[in-house]
Structure formats: C-alpha cells, structure tokens
C-alpha cells in the first residue's frame, strides 16, 4: 500500500507532494498528473530515507532553527553550491585524512557532495550546515569501508588495546634520541611535516582516527563530533584517548622506520 496516497472517488489521487509555492500543502492531482508525480514522490521518499541517515528533517522553503531557548527561528536558505564551495577545502581535507590516498579521497568527496546535494532540501538547520556536510562525508566513508569488508572498528573497540599503555613522552625520554638537547620532546615533534602526519594518520584505525580529525583539526566541539559520528560522549572520549595513543605509537614507529631518529634497538 502506498503510504501517503489514497484512492479518491475515481477522478484522481490525493498525494501530499510538497507544494513548491506553498510548502507543506498537499496538492489534489488529476490521475494523469498523479501518475507522473509518482516519480516526484519516489524522489521525496529517497530523500527522506537519506535524511533519516544524515539526521535531517523534511524541509519547508526556509530553514527553521530551534536554539537553546527553544524558540524556533527562520533563516534564509542558501543555494547548495554556495555552502558546498564555502566548506570544500576543509571537507576535502577530511576526506583525504579518512582515505588511503588522493584518488580514494577524491571519490569520497564526490560521493559526499552528490549525497549531500540530494538531501540538502531536508536540512532544516542552516547554521549546522558544516556539521551536516561532515556527517554526510563520514557516512559515505563508513559505507565505503563496509563495502570493502573493512569495518571502521576493525580493531575490537572494547577489547584491551596494546597501544593503551604506550607513552610517546616516556619513550622519547627513555630512548633519548637527541642526547645533547635541552628540549628533547619538542625536537622530536619538530621532525614531522604535514605529509608525515598524514602518513601516520593512514595507519590508524578509522574509528579512532575520525574523532581526532574532527575535534583537533577541524575544530568541532565534542558534542558536535558525537552528532557527526553518531556515538555517545563517553564513547567519543574513549576513542579520542585510544586514537591519541595510536597516533603516538604511529609517530614513534614512523620516526624510527624513516630513520628520523636513531635508537639502539627498534621497538
């Protein structure tokens, strides 16, 4: 049974297709128009299904925002191309950090933009557009990992983690790679260029990598990151910690492997 339509007295169907001029009002359609309009309804339902996954709602012509006061405000809807261009560089950076290489990142960016474009009408809170775009990109990345049979949490998330007890701070102090330095730890960190950090990111478990990318590089609050990743705050904080430990071990192993530091024995 069609969920939104019902048979009328033989002359047509009442289908609550969104009225472009008067949003929220259903149109009464003659049968021929109704049949041709079924494609619109299917598109609407597809959008709703995507919106459900991205955390958006059915839109009207303008965006409605409910702030901390509970008062609903209305802001003008901006064209998708405008908001996409505004966030394009950061979104690409996020895609690149989530991906294996540039080609993978470019595909992910385009997937995310296409999905976001289709669902944009459903975004109610225009002020949350950046958070929403990153949510869409995260979901696209998750779908791609699953399609490859590599879940984001391929390392058991709740199991004990050998990296958990690793301390880069302590390791540098023990190994003492710069014996004549008074700023041993800072000297170690200064070894790393952007591409080195990126290389280490690619070795991290995606579920631990994404919280660090969102909060530390892209400036989202922990609350916003929980919304993007769709996880509770406690889980986010735990993954931030484990991600940080993976990052620390990754930096040390990268430095040893690339001979940026000299140690007596590889870990």
């Amino acid at each position, binding site marked *: 049974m069609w969920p939104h339509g019902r048979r009328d007295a033989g002359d047509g169907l009442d289908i609550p297709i969104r009225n472009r001029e008067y949003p929220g009002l259903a149109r009464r359609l003659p049968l021929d128009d109704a049949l041709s309009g079924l494609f619109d309804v299917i598109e609407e339902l597809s959008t709703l299904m995507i919106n459900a996954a991205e955390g958006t709602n059915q839109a009207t012509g303008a965006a409605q925002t409910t702030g901390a006061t509970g008062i609903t405000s209305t802001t003008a809807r901006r064209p*998708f191309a405008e908001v996409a261009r505004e966030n394009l560089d950061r979104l690409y950076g996020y895609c690149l950090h989530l991906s294996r290489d540039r080609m993978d990142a470019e595909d992910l960016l385009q997937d995310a933009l296409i999905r976001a*474009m289709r669902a944009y009408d459903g975004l109610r809170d225009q002020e949350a557009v950046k958070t929403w775009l990153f949510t869409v990109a995260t979901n696209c990345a998750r779908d791609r990992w699953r399609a490859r049979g590599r879940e984001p949490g391929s390392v058991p998330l709740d199991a004990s983690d050998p990296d958990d007890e690793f301390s880069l701070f302590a390791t540098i102090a023990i190994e003492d790679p710069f014996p004549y330095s008074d700023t041993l730890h800072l000297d170690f960190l200064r070894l790393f260029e952007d591409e080195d950090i990126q290389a280490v990111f690619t070795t991290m478990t995606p579920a631990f990598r994404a919280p660090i990318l969102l909060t*530390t590089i892209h400036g989202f609050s922990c609350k916003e990151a929980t919304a993007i990743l769709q996880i509770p705050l406690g889980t986010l904080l735990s993954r*931030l910690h484990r991600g940080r430990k993976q990052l*620390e071990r990754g930096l040390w192993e990268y430095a040893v492997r690339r001979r940026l530091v000299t140690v007596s024995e590889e870990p």
Partner: protein
Amino acid sequence: MIDCPEAVRRMWAYLDAALDPGPTEELEVHLGACKRCCGELEFSRELRGIVAATNSPVLSDELRSRVEHLLGTGHAREADR
C-alpha cells in the same frame, strides 16, 4: 587522588575543554603533585598543536573543475524548481 594512567587518559579531553568540572578538578589536583604528568601535559599540548596545525590540502585544478561541474548540475536542478 587519581593515578598517573588515569591522569594521562584525561589529558586531551582536558585540553579540549571537554572534561566535566569534577574530573577536571581531580586532574588538576594530580597535576599539582606530579611533575612527570605536568611534563606529559605540556607534551600533549604541543603534540595536539602540531596535529591541529596540519594544513588542509588544496584541491587539484582537475578535481576542482569536476566539483564545479557537479555543483553546476545541482544549481540547474535548483533553478528548475
């Protein structure tokens, strides 16, 4: 008082200002008495700063052109409505 592993566990959340007041106070009490964890906190702050300063890469001209084409297609759809 919390021990050193627990203090380290809370450090990035502390630097992110994401810790609740109770755990924050416990951490600060620990830091007041533990020189090693003060060093670890300072190192965490520097490491976090380096990660935060990682530049966003620039789109290649070819990718930007593809994206503009894609956005142009979307713009056409919006104009049709």
